[in-house]
């Protein structure tokens, strides 16, 4: 005999203003099995919970229905309350009459009717609920950080500092990311390499950190506390353990016409290369697209000059498999391609560059040794025009709808550095808005205007035309003066929008984490859980979650590390008991469930069955590993024979809810 208690929450006026809560309690009190139905102002408050607890004890309840906010909000609260009163926590159901009812309706009569129906569905379900017991699952005390930029490095260092092993997987031959390419950092103008490279070295020397450079994540299986990850170490044709990084091979390599990606293609490198002098690990890599030996079998110079015998033309990609308790995503960003912006002549004129290219042009380790020269004729530019918001804040398919956040500050930095080093240069910045929130940021921008006399013009560049004399005509509007300008420039610098790295999308699929429409990873809560993804055990660090400058990235990297450490500290975690199980007598062995399972929790086994005629038969049936199953329910929907069922959300419970709604 069911003894169900129903508790309807006012949530102040959140629910009570739109839903007649007393009528809901009254109506649900007449449902079969309901012995008590009450309403209260704040059910989640201590006295509200006491109401539930005493009812469980006094009325000897077998099930509880709370009509309140979303179960995401307070299901746990009420489950704990029930458990403390001696009722199995999985005998509690929450009917969401706030987010799915009072907040979206205006009419009291309609909202009340819907709240009653939602309540009836929950009553119908709770009558079929069974007590469930959680199991414990051990936590692997090792973390994986995907991406070796400043975000990944910071996260890895912090996790290692706490005493846990951590692996960094970086797809490029060196860690360091975008920060390694940057010349100076705002707002202090300290040298990026001077503050980054010590951290790179620290990461490589920390005995708890393993760096898998030139590697990519191939496959992720498992769940929080126990992920199994396959990492592909791409063949670099150099034995990492033998290479000393002397660089002789890169000097002697006869193939020197390879666009140097570290310098944004502004100069060339050899086919065997070390990206930059402070690379970590400082190991050479052969580019198979350009190496004559790998392409034609004729050359072998690097092998001959290498005294360490590190060159291995036969090296293959290798896969390593490793268990991790936590995974931190730090895949970073890239500037967008500007092919679609014909008006800025980026593809036609070498003197129209992106801001990241300008960083390399101004860097002492860049193509010009730190002297700012025009890429076309290697002369000093005397008039430079900066264009902001190229591809940012766009409402069309060419650009991105968001503000890229970092451009205002780095442009002020570039303008200031140029005016400082080359005072005879006129610098114009075309802006729509100057956005400089941040500590000492607006002061920095004002310094560019007031101290360095950078010409900030409110308006946008409409057209950039390379001229036959090598100059560039920049046609722009000055909105405050209400005129159209033509500037005879030597160089144009475009602040291209930034976008998440292209590897983020397939990675999100592997990790079963969510992304927004711009391919930035979605945090579990935009305010209160900013570094966790909605998937347990997956954390977010840096620009993969949204545009960020270096200080913010480092802060988020450390925050993600703290969250990962909190998980790794635990010896075991409580598993969700709402897992799938298969009725072997009904299973026809079709594999549909195995294919849809995102966690790899389902395997097929051959099992012996006794037939009615006393013979035995071996049949292939599904078997669910409850420690791996996350209870998503995909298999129960995919199963054509109805053999697969989910504890806590069984087929009969769901049908009972539907019946109650349709009655």
């Amino acid at each position: 005999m069911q003894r169900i208690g129903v508790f309807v929450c006012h949530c102040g006026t959140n629910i009570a203003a739109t839903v007649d809560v007393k009528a809901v309690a009254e109506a649900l009190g007449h449902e079969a099995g309901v012995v008590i139905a009450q309403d209260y102002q704040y059910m989640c408050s201590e006295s509200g919970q006491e109401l539930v607890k005493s009812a469980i004890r006094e009325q000897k309840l077998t099930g509880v229905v709370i009509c309140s906010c979303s179960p995401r909000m307070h299901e746990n609260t009420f489950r704990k309350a029930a458990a403390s009163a001696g009722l199995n926590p999985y005998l509690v159901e929450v009917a969401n009459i706030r987010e799915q009812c009072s907040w979206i309706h205006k009419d009291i009569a309609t909202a009340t009717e819907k709240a009653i129906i939602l309540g009836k569905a929950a009553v119908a379900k709770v009558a079929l609920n069974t007590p469930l017991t959680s199991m414990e699952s051990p936590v692997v005390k090792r973390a994986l950080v995907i991406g070796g930029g400043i975000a990944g490095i910071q996260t890895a260092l912090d996790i290692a500092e706490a005493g846990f092993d951590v692996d960094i997987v970086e797809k490029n031959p060196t860690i360091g990311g975008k920060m390694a390419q940057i010349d100076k950092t705002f707002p202090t103008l300290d040298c990026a390499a001077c503050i980054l490279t010590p951290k790179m070295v620290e990461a490589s020397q920390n005995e708890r950190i393993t760096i898998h450079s030139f590697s990519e994540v191939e496959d992720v299986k498992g769940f929080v506390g126990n992920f199994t990850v396959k990492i592909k170490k791409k063949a670099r044709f150099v034995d990492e353990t033998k290479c000393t990084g002397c660089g002789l091979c890169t000097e002697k390599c006869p193939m020197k016409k390879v666009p140097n990606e570290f310098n944004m293609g502004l100069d060339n490198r050899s086919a065997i290369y070390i990206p930059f002098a402070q690379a970590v690990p400082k190991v050479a890599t052969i580019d198979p697209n350009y190496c004559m030996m790998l392409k034609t079998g004729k050359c072998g110079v690097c092998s001959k000059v290498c005294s360490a015998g590190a060159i291995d033309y036969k090296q293959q990609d290798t896969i390593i498999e490793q268990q991790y308790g936590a995974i931190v995503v730090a895949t970073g960003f890239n500037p967008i391609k500007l092919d679609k912006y014909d008006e800025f002549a980026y593809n036609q004129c070498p003197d129209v560059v992106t801001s990241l290219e300008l960083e390399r042009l101004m860097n002492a380790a860049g193509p010009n040794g730190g002297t700012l020269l025009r890429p076309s004729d290697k002369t000093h530019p005397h008039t430079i025009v900066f264009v902001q918001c190229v591809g940012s804040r766009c409402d069309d398919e060419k650009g991105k709808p968001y503000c890229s956040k970092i451009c205002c500050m780095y442009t002020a930095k570039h303008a200031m550095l140029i005016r400082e080093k080359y005072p005879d240069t006129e610098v114009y910045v075309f802006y729509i808005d100057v956005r400089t929130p941040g500590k000492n940021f607006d002061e920095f921008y004002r310094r560019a205007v007031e101290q360095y006399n950078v010409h900030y013009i409110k308006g946008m560049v409409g057209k950039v035309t390379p001229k036959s004399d090598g100059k560039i005509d920049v046609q722009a509007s000055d909105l405050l003066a209400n005129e159209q300008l033509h500037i005879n420039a030597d160089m144009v610098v475009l602040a291209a929008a930034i976008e998440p790295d292209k590897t983020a999308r397939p990675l999100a699929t592997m990790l079963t984490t969510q992304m927004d429409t711009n391919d930035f990873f979605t945090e579990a809560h935009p305010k209160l859980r900013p570094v966790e993804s909605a998937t347990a055990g997956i954390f977010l660090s840096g620009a993969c979650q949204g545009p960020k400058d270096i200080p913010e990235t480092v802060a988020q990297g450390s925050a993600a590390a703290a969250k990962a450490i909190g998980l790794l500290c635990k010896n075991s975690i409580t598993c969700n008991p709402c897992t799938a199980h298969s009725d072997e007598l009904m299973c026809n062995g079709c594999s549909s469930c195995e294919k849809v399972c995102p966690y790899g929790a389902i395997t097929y086994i051959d099992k012996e069955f006794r037939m009615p005629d006393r013979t035995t038969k071996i049949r292939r049936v599904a078997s669910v590993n409850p420690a791996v199953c996350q209870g998503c329910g995909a298999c129960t929907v995919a199963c054509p024979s109805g053999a697969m069922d989910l504890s806590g959300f069984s087929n009969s419970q769901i049908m009972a809810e539907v019946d109650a709604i349709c009655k």
Partner: protein
Amino acid sequence: MNKNLKEQVLRSSGVNVLKCMRCGKCSATCPSYDEMEYHPHQFVYMVEKGDIGTLMKSESIYKCLTCFACVERCPRGVEPAKVVEAVRLAAVRQQGGNRLEPTDIPALLDEDLPQQAIVTAMRKYAK
């Protein structure tokens, strides 16, 4: 501010002027800029404010080449040329007659004039 006129211009242009983020790229890109008293970004802003009478009286509405460079390059998809055309249409309609009659055309023709210009002229100056 004439509310009816504003509504008419918004409706006939199909433009949502509120999408404008005031970057001025339309005016930066406009080849007729120097000929115009009011520039493309001002058209968008003045229509937003409802100050359409001023625009209708201005010669600027006939200076727009309808080259659509502003439409092509606006990062917010505002389509300023359509706003200019809508104001022009409102002016032509209010005058109750065409600014250009087909019979006027033969006198204006010269050899270098592309045919497209005649079509455009009819579009711009007639109802």
